[in-house]
């Protein structure tokens, strides 16, 4: 569990949850995790059936949701102690996020979509350490094999290309952790594996920990680590709320 070697100077694990509980409003607990740790530099496969609390857990990890109870430590920072604005800023600076699909803002070009995190957040831009953001975006695009699509409107891209643009966006300015919420669900199996190879390579290059959520167990062997959410999440009301 602690076998992963952190490439970063900080030694705190990428994710560490302690007695975390979360409920929407006054409803029953959807997430109840006594302990979960993800070391840095790992590629983690987080799996579970629909309704096992995956999306809620990702919301907690990304700092969009705040745990009702417990500690959610991301890269050594307890998100539950941060204000809403501070959590947003933390996410902007340290995390990348890839959705299942429809990852791109339709009115921006591919390049502008990739540049969005550094354009919106000065701290994220600072991680480029003076490098030209556009050049960084171009390099990522070349790496992910979407360089030829950089100036196209996003609507002309295939689903696979769109997901690779989303990966490029999540990785720009080298965040410490990338969270993917079933990014391959809209891809056919051939492309799925190729997509994952590109994702792993890019995360490794950026030094980012990858947390990958899916219900597709066939992908599990490709990851360095796997966590079964139903085993970790002991909340009873999960299936009622999530779908």
């Amino acid at each position, binding site marked *: 569990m602690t076998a992963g070697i952190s490439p970063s100077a900080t030694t705190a694990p990428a994710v560490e949850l302690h007695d975390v509980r979360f409920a929407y409003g006054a409803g029953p607990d959807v997430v109840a995790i006594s302990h979960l740790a993800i070391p840095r530099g790992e590629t983690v496969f987080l799996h579970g059936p629909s309704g096992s609390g995956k999306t809620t857990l990702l919301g907690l990890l990304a700092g969009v949701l705040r745990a009702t109870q417990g500690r959610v430590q991301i890269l050594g920072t307890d998100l539950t102690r941060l204000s809403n604005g501070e959590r947003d800023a933390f996410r902007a600076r340290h*995390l990348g996020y890839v959705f299942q699909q429809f990852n791109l803002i339709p009115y921006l070009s591919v390049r502008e979509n990739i540049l969005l995190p550094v354009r919106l957040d000065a701290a994220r831009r600072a991680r480029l350490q003076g490098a030209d953001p556009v050049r960084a975006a171009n390099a990522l695009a070349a790496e992910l094999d979407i360089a030829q699509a950089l100036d196209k409107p996003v609507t002309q891209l295939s689903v696979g290309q769109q997901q690779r643009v989303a990966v490029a966006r999540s990785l720009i300015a080298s965040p410490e952790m990338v969270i993917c*919420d079933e990014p391959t669900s809209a891809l056919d199996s051939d492309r799925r594996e190729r997509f994952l190879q590109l994702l792993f390579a890019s995360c490794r290059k950026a030094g980012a920990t990858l947390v990958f959520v899916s219900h597709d167990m066939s992908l599990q062997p490709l990851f360095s680590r796997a966590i079964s959410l139903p085993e970790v999440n002991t909340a009873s009301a999960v299936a009622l709320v999530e779908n």
Partner: protein
Amino acid sequence: MGSILRLALQSLRSRAFTSLLTVASIALSVTLLVGIEHVRAGVRESFAGTIRGVDLIVGARGGTLQILLSTVFGIGAPSGAVSWETYERWSAHPAVSWTIPYALGDSHRGYRVIGTTNAFYERYRFRQDGRVTFATGAPASGETDVVIGAEVAERLRYKVGDPIVVTHGLQGGGISDHEAHPFTIVGVLNRTFTPIDRAIYVTLEGLEAMHEDFEAAPTPATPPAIGTPSGDAPPAMPGAEAPPTMPGATPPVMPGAEAPPVMPGAEAPPVMPGAEAPPAMPGAEAPPPVAPAASTDSAEEEDHAEHDHEPSQISAFFVGTKNRFEALQLQRELNTDFTEPLTAIIPGVSLGELWQNIASAEVGLRIVAAFAVAIGLTGMLVALYSSLDARRREMAILRAVGAGPRTIVSLLVFESALLALIGCVVGVALVYVILALGQGAIEARSGVHLTLRALGATEWKYLALVLVSGTLIGFVPALKAYRNSLSDGLAPRS
């Protein structure tokens, strides 16, 4: 903030058609609001500039507005008549620098004929320092001379040298044309964008002669009784030979040296009935021809007999004081004239009063314009609000890359502010385009000359108001998006 602004711009551009419609609805309402204000200010300016440099307008005792309307705007009948002797007396008042007599005569094809003197061309001012100038020709000096305003010339296609005939009464096309006394156009005035453009000017003598001839005209076959003794009757006959015969009569018309011989008593005192009048009459040349005409029937007959076309009365007169501060005192004196009941008005003050009366109609226009703006802004609210559901995904993406709910709010507020701003800019541009293109038509229709001028304080205030309300309205969809983004988090329902 700059990146959000750019994002807002790009987002609006992506919904170009909706944005265009929203901008159009705001722009049109701004055009209405600013346009009404612009036209109102222009009309007011043009209105206030109708007469300048005249310190007092004096007419027979009557309503202030009546005097103003009849003398300055050529609307309605004058309050009455002022006798020539009174006019002369006040002209000689020590505080008075100059006077312009104003005798409303008849009309020609619906345009008013006004008898006045050269002082009118020299002294009358409008707008800043607009002077009455001639496009062609020169001031009327002879009894048959006539000067016409720019609009009269344009509409009736008159030019210098054309003969014209004056109708008795104010209504155009009357039956009793003064064919007995045909006039010749000697001058055409430049356009002033004031009622001057719609007036016809003759000399006081010409006006007087016209009336006398009119009285003589009904019996043209035989020399009229009144006109006979002088031997000047022939000019009273209709026909082309009239003008050539007139010159003989013209010299005595001038209030110059010929006049005194008519009167046996050369000095004013014996003629004047009012006791206080003599001291007010320092001028030696004027009294003789005027006084008798006004006072006794016999003198009037005599006047006619000599065919000396001096006016017995005028409608009003304009006064320029030597010192403007004396205008108030002079007004008081005029209003308490013992010999003749007069009303003296200060044009600027009366124009202001008149404008106040008209101004209430503006309120209605403004309310309409305000509602138009409200409708335009509501249209924007609808457009932005209804787009929100389709944009939940967009908001989730922004949240994922670290945008806080505040960023989402500012994005939407920026969008509405931008729409309002573009709407304002386009609306104002539209006002100028419409004014520039429609200036000629507006002038031709209403005679109001609208200058293309910079936006006034009120217009800026309106624009600021539209912009602020547009921005504030943006908070409605923005707060909705804020709530959406909080509940959706990174899992939009789409």
